């Protein structure tokens, strides 16, 4: 029977993805508010919107190429789909887009918008038109693209996630291929943030298990999205078997701690993380005396669905 939720009847999370793990690493209280309770900003995040369409567009491109589509046709199809996805059509009762309705998705953001999204895709495909990284083919000839994984691990836990693409570098080494977008200048310092990093450790760990192949790490394609241009950078982040073993042990300990917090009905704050990544969105809540925090939560956030890694997106 396919489990329908990532949570046990007592509320403990048993299926973990990189998003859940990273939030729990940052701060148990943030994990509780954001992942368990589902508190989220009432406004659509331009960064999530932009990054999601950008990444899925690349995934579609590699899938179409692997299926034998001509590069020019694949780029056209990818651009067309991105144009559609970034247009807010009205939907019929079956959820299908109604032609002739709606308008372009709009955000009050100077550099991340529909125009720069399409620009960034077209410029990327031109920048890397002679790319020496090729899509890995499995033993039965299937391309290593669009792989959603579920891995049973120790303590009756599940690791799950989605690998966009597995690729071979010019030397024939295997890597997971991931796309990132940023507003900052891409430099060696930019890529330093990805080690240590649980997302890419998990992807490398999962890819080695799924494909039973010696995956070396992740190739990161970074795109700096500016008002007047998009610039690109590429760098690998490696993971040795020892580093993956260490990450695995640390993650098991982390999940065990989170389960203990849940059993005690108390998720402590990690004040050292409050100012990271532009500032935690719950800092304003956590800075209030406990008796009024609920009021501030309801004033600034809306309660959405709990983050459920097992559910397909």
């Amino acid at each position: 029977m396919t489990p329908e939720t990532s949570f046990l009847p007592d509320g403990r999370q048993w299926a973990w993805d990189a998003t859940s793990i990273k939030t729990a690493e940052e701060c148990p209280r943030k994990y509780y508010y954001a992942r368990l309770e589902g508190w989220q900003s009432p406004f659509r995040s331009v960064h999530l919107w932009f990054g999601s369409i950008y990444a899925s567009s690349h995934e579609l491109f590699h899938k179409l190429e692997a299926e034998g589509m001509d590069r020019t046709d694949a780029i056209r199809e990818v651009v067309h789909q991105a144009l559609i996805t970034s247009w807010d059509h009205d939907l019929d009762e079956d959820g299908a887009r109604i032609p002739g309705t709606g308008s372009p998705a709009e955000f009050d953001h100077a550099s991340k918008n529909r125009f720069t999204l399409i620009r960034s895709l077209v410029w990327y495909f031109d920048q890397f038109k002679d790319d020496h990284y090729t899509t890995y083919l499995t033993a039965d000839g299937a391309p290593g693209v669009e792989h959603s994984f579920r891995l049973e691990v120790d303590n009756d836990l599940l690791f799950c996630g989605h690998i966009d693409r597995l690729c071979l570098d010019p030397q024939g080494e295997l890597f997971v291929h991931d796309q990132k977008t940023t507003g900052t200048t891409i430099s060696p310092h930019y890529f330093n943030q990805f080690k240590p990093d649980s997302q890419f450790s998990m992807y490398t760990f999962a890819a080695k298990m799924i494909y039973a192949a010696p995956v070396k790490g992740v190739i990161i394609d970074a795109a700096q999205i500016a008002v007047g241009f998009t610039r690109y950078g590429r760098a690998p982040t490696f993971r040795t078997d020892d580093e993956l073993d260490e990450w695995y042990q640390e993650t098991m300990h982390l999940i065990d701690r989170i389960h203990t917090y849940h059993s005690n009905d108390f998720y402590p704050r990690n004040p050292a993380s409050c100012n990271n990544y532009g500032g935690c969105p719950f800092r304003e809540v956590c800075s209030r005396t406990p008796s009024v925090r609920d009021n501030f939560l309801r004033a600034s956030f809306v309660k959405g669905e709990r983050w459920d890694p097992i559910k397909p997106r």
Partner: protein
Amino acid sequence: MNNPSPDLNELMMRDPLALTNDEIDQIIEAMRERRHRFNQGDMKAGSAKPKAPPKALKGLDNDLLDMEIKL
């Protein structure tokens, strides 16, 4: 008379479900042209805003008028 090709911003404002392959190719080519200009050094080449027309040279037209009258 041939209708002029729609510019990039106009194409981006059309319902994408109604775009033809030719129109999508026009969007792609327009974006490529902007990349070419960026690579030539124009840091704003990829901006969505069209370039402002050059400001009129004040005073020059009056000088020309003067010349015509004298002629």
